[in-house]
């Protein structure tokens, strides 16, 4: 089955589209997805910092995309995801997440991700999770 075109990939996920996520690259168990700052996503109105939940959504989407970018993957679901928030994202800055499947078994993918805002070398957040990986049926 051919993989959907990268630009169509996120448009098919309503919640990713609602958060304005854009796929920047996809392939070989890796994905990079950006999310622009938006006043509606703010968690702390005093500072304009994006809500952690929106960053979590970006991380979950990016990790799922990395799983689908593994050879033979046709579907995925999150088993668990841990996110560490290292610092507040700079208000107004676009946040870019990069995820990598660092190991897969027949049914499980192990994924790591970081999110950066371009303001510092220290990521805004990092994530690690386990995902279900559905594969194409292999012929005998």
């Amino acid at each position: 089955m051919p993989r959907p075109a990268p630009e169509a990939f996120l448009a098919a996920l309503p919640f990713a589209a609602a958060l304005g996520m854009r796929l920047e690259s996809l392939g070989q168990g890796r994905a990079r997805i950006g999310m622009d700052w938006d006043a509606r996503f703010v968690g702390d109105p005093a500072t304009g910092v994006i809500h952690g939940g929106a960053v979590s959504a970006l991380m979950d989407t990016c990790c799922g995309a990395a799983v689908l970018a593994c050879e033979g993957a046709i579907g995925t679901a999150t088993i668990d995801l841990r996110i560490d928030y290292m610092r507040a994202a700079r208000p107004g800055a676009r946040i870019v997440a990069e995820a990598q499947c660092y190991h897969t078994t027949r049914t499980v993918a192990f994924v790591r991700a970081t999110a950066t805002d371009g303001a510092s070398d220290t990521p805004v957040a990092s994530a690690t999770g386990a995902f279900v990986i559905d594969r194409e049926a292999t012929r005998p």
Partner: protein
Amino acid sequence: MTRPEPVQVIKQRRDAVLHALVEGVPYIAFLGVRFDRLGDELTAILPYDAKLIGNPALPALHGGATASFLEIAAIIELGWARLWADMESGRLDPAQVQPGAASLRLPRTIDVTVDYLRAGLPRDAYARARVNRFGRRYASVRVDAWQDNRDRPFAQATGHFMMPQPPRD
């Protein structure tokens, strides 16, 4: 002897404080999350909306929408728990509790782990948070979320949060 406060006065004060806590956060409004209150117990409600879907083929709620919902439930529970004692003792002046007030500052997430137990169905979801440790510096919170059956949670989360620090003199 002082008479107890009329019940409607107490309810009005508690609801006003809860409303002010929730109303100031744009992302809570964006998701459509609201809170029911029974005494000091809060239940977070995520009304179903088509934009919350992640997998249109099933369809199922997006894991990120679920994670956001659980994190919101945890943060509001902590902000609420922090205000409760002051609110009940009368130290907190309800007139001061306007969106943007210093007393309404919310905790910041240190880390959160979400366990996805089953697919989120395209219907309303509910969550309750339980504060397992409430320290001056940080707090540890556990959240359970369910849909039709309280005994069949579809997601759980554990998170750690930095409590807002009072301004230094």
